[in-house]
């Protein structure tokens, strides 16, 4: 099976080379038959990578420990579910998984665009295969998932495809096991979505590059690329949210986001992809920011590669760097080549990317989009700067200094607040220019809501200005969304005489992108609401409780009533029983656990914690078992009360629903001529 996988990858590599060369030649000669051959090569490559991945999964499921990857990442006792997920639990497997997703995306994108894109098509195939080529080289040369295990004459073992001199095949009786932190349901779903987002950001880049290469640079490219950016963006959003859910439930420190390099690596491209999502609209409506859009399409992809490089090359220590190796130089080479290649291409085509219009007014929809764009990109770069600070400080002063959460909160926090402000004002501005009078009229409701919230929070909750400001800005955005829904429904109602609900649905279905966007914004409002609550008003307590003793926190009483030991499939668990009461009311019985995994991989790491969690719309009660003495006569706990935490996850779900609403094809109700209250073309 190892050989099958390796040979399949090797053939895929050859087809990739063939596809690139043929597609470039076809594009230059405008030879449709040759172009079709290049496209077919892409389909074959996709199929071969699927076969290779299937071979690795088969070995994982059947415990084929002759394979180095299987032996060092899986074990017999691992549940089947996690055996499959081991595919992306280690470096070489996750890179193969990357290739697989790229193969799938490429095939779908090319199949759906081929007929519409006679000129861009071959270049698109060439670009997608170019990226695939890089990952195949890594898999074949630097980080091969199909190495077999060999025992050398001196008794040590090594992984290699071909027999090292004097070596004999080696098949261990059992594997080392999967990192216990990854044995969690969230950790099975999280990487799939994250990778779908990561890999998907190749698509807008490849499409932008194909547009530049083919010279087809009218504004049609942004219209077509929108969906290929939105889909990966949605996956990346889900992936990041699932990742923070995992961190919240599994790492047991009461928080959901640590600004760890690995987290930042997924967040930075998300920021630029979000900027791109918005700036596409300026080009569609006003023919502006053409160069900038090209750069954003590139940045999303480039920052994904950089993120992978940062977290996998070992240049920065991360608390959860699961795999580190020698692929760094290859990644750096690819980063350099793509950067200068794209820049040169852009320079060459610069004359064709002249803006159609100038900014008419600083108080217009496009200006607001521009500001929000700048904010997102600045956020991406300050986050990147903080992530790279250990290297920068070492280069300049010789001392490696890592910056952590306080830096990121200080620099990113105000940027996010400014983004919220723009989310509140931007949608109310018209294209080109907005009169003060009109702005005042539409801002009345949102501003009133924001002031009411600020006042209520000030009087009832806190004098701390951070939550006051953040919540009132969230209220502003919420007011704007309400106002927009109201205005849309009202004008349709006037035109058609429909009832309120029907008119609302009608106007939403007619403008899916726009109202989908507002639903996403509403999700952001909920997230901001929950996040501020959890960060600003968290209580926590570290304490030891004797058997049947109690501790108090945030109005709750925690009674520790016993410790049990159970056996899991590949671990032993120690479970504490903690009864949570509030006055006379019984709130919940929580079972915080410590899991002691048996595998060798787990031995070095110590036990993992499984949080005991009671969640409600008001607040989460979160109990971590940290240790115990004398067979459970005394147990050490860390207890957190996290207000409003659930709203963050609800907000995440709303964001996803909004994106789906914008994406799904729907039966359109009959168009009506709406006398728009806006001065200019019906947006989005």
């Amino acid at each position, binding site marked *: 099976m190892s050989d099958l996988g390796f040979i399949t990858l090797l053939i895929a590599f050859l087809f990739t080379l063939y596809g690139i060369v043929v597609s470039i030649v076809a594009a*230059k000669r405008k030879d449709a038959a040759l172009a079709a051959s290049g496209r077919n090569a892409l389909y074959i490559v996709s199929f071969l990578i699927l076969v290779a991945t299937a071979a690795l999964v088969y070995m994982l499921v059947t415990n084929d420990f002759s394979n180095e990857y299987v032996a060092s990442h899986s074990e017999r006792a691992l549940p089947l579910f996690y055996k499959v997920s081991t595919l992306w639990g280690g470096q070489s497997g996750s890179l193969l998984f990357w290739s697989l997703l790229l193969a799938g995306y490429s095939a779908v994108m090319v199949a759906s665009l081929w007929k519409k894109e006679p000129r861009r098509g071959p270049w698109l195939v060439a670009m997608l295969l170019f990226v695939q080529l890089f990952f195949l080289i890594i898999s074949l040369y630097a980080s091969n998932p199909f190495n077999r295990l060999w025992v050398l004459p001196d008794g040590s073992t090594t992984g290699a495809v071909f027999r090292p001199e004097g070596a004999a095949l080696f098949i261990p009786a059992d594997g080392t096991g999967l990192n216990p932190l990854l044995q969690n349901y969230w950790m099975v779903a999280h990487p799939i979505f994250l990778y779908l987002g990561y890999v998907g950001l190749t698509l807008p880049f490849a499409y932008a590059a194909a547009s530049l*290469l*083919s*010279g087809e640079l009218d504004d049609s490219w942004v219209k077509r690329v929108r969906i290929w950016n939105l889909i990966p963006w949605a996956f990346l959003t889900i992936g990041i949210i699932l990742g923070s859910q995992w961190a919240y439930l599994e790492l047991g420190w009461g928080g959901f986001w640590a600004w760890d390099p690995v987290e930042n690596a997924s967040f930075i491209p998300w920021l630029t992809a979000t900027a791109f999502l918005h700036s596409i609209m300026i080009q569609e409506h006003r023919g502006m920011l*053409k*160069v*900038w859009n090209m*750069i954003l399409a590139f940045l999303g992809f480039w920052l994904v590669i*950089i993120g992978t*490089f940062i977290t996998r*090359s*070992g*240049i*920065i*220590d991360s608390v959860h760097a699961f795999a580190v190796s020698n692929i*760094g*130089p290859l990644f*750096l080479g690819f*980063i*350099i080549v793509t*950067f200068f290649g794209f*820049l040169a*291409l*852009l*320079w*060459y*085509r*610069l*004359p*064709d*990317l*002249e*803006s159609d219009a100038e900014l008419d007014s600083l108080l217009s929809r496009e200006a607001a989009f521009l500001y929000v764009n700048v904010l997102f990109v600045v956020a991406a*770069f300050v986050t*990147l700067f903080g992530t*790279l600070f250990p*290297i*920068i400080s*070492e*280069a300049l002063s*010789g*001392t*490696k200094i890592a910056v952590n959460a306080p830096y990121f909160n200080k620099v990113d926090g105000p940027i996010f607040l400014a983004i919220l402000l723009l989310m509140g004002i931007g949608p109310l501005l018209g294209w080109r220019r907005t009169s003060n009078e009109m702005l005042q009229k539409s801002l009345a409701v949102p501003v009133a809501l924001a002031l009411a919230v600020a006042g209520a929070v000030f009087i009832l909750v806190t004098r701390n200005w951070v939550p006051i400001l953040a919540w009132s800005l969230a209220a502003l955005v919420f007011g704007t969304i309400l106002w927009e829904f109201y205005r849309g429904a009202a004008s349709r109602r006037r035109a058609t005489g429909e009832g309120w609900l029907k008119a609302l649905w009608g106007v939403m279905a007619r403008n899916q992108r726009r109202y989908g966007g507002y639903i996403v914004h509403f999700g952001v409002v909920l997230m901001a609401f929950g996040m501020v609550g959890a960060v600003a008003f968290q209580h926590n307590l570290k304490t030891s409780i004797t058997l049947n003793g109690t501790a108090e926190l945030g109005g709750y009483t925690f009674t520790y009533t016993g410790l049990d030991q159970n056996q899991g499939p590949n671990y032993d668990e120690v479970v504490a029983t903690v009864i949570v009461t509030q006055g006379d009311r019984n709130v919940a019985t929580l079972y915080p656990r410590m899991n002691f995994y048996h595998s060798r991989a787990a031995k070095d790491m110590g036990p993992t914690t499984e949080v005991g969690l009671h969640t409600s719309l008001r607040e989460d009660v979160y109990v971590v078992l940290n240790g115990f003495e004398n067979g459970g006569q005394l147990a050490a706990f860390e207890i957190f009360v996290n207000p409003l935490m659930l709203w963050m996850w609800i907000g995440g779900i709303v964001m996803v629903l909004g994106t789906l609403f914008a994406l799904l094809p729907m039966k359109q109700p009959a168009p009506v001529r709406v006398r728009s209250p806006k001065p200019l073309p019906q947006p989005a």
Partner: protein
Amino acid sequence: MSQAPIESQKKKRKGGVGLLLLIAVAGFILLAVFYYGILNPPSQRADSGEKAPDFSVTTYASAPLPPDVLEPALANLFGGNYQTYCTGDLSKPRPAEYDSIPLKLSDFRGTPVVLNFWASWCTTCKEEQPLLESAWRRYKGQVQFIGLSHLDQDKNARAWLQCYDVTYPNAPDLGGKAYNAYRIQGVPETYFIDADGNIVDYYVGAIPNGSILDQLIQKLLQQ
């Protein structure tokens, strides 16, 4: 690229040149950082079996800080109820034998050393400090304890030592020289060095309880 319309090359590049230049410069700096990073991979910490790097420091003054300096410093470090943390008599000077003297690790060749990196701003150090002091009082004569404070201020560090009544020698690690020589990653970290100056073991983070510290010291004594 040959199919670019000819006229496009004749047009002047107007808009976007500045933007492109900006991106090029930013990207170039980024690449330089990566290049540096890849040439200088993170070094591994000093590990057991290695020779413990020597260092040369000057210990803190033993005289207690005047109350008008001490009290605000303690309130700053521990909050208003600092008395609950402080075990020592806040006006008693600490041992005169370690009063502002030059100190080198190699001075203690022949005696096993427990070397603790700490800082007054470090919260987990608060749990560890009493354990270290009590172990020092029990093992004095068999094992030498040394504390080096990292990125600390003189008045805060001295207030700390006064508060916990620390009687083993402590010194500021000026410029983080020892910190870098041991290539550690944060405070607290504790190194256990045998009588010949070789590293026996280390502990990352605060040592959680006295029995773990005792085990580590016993292991050191058996070398």
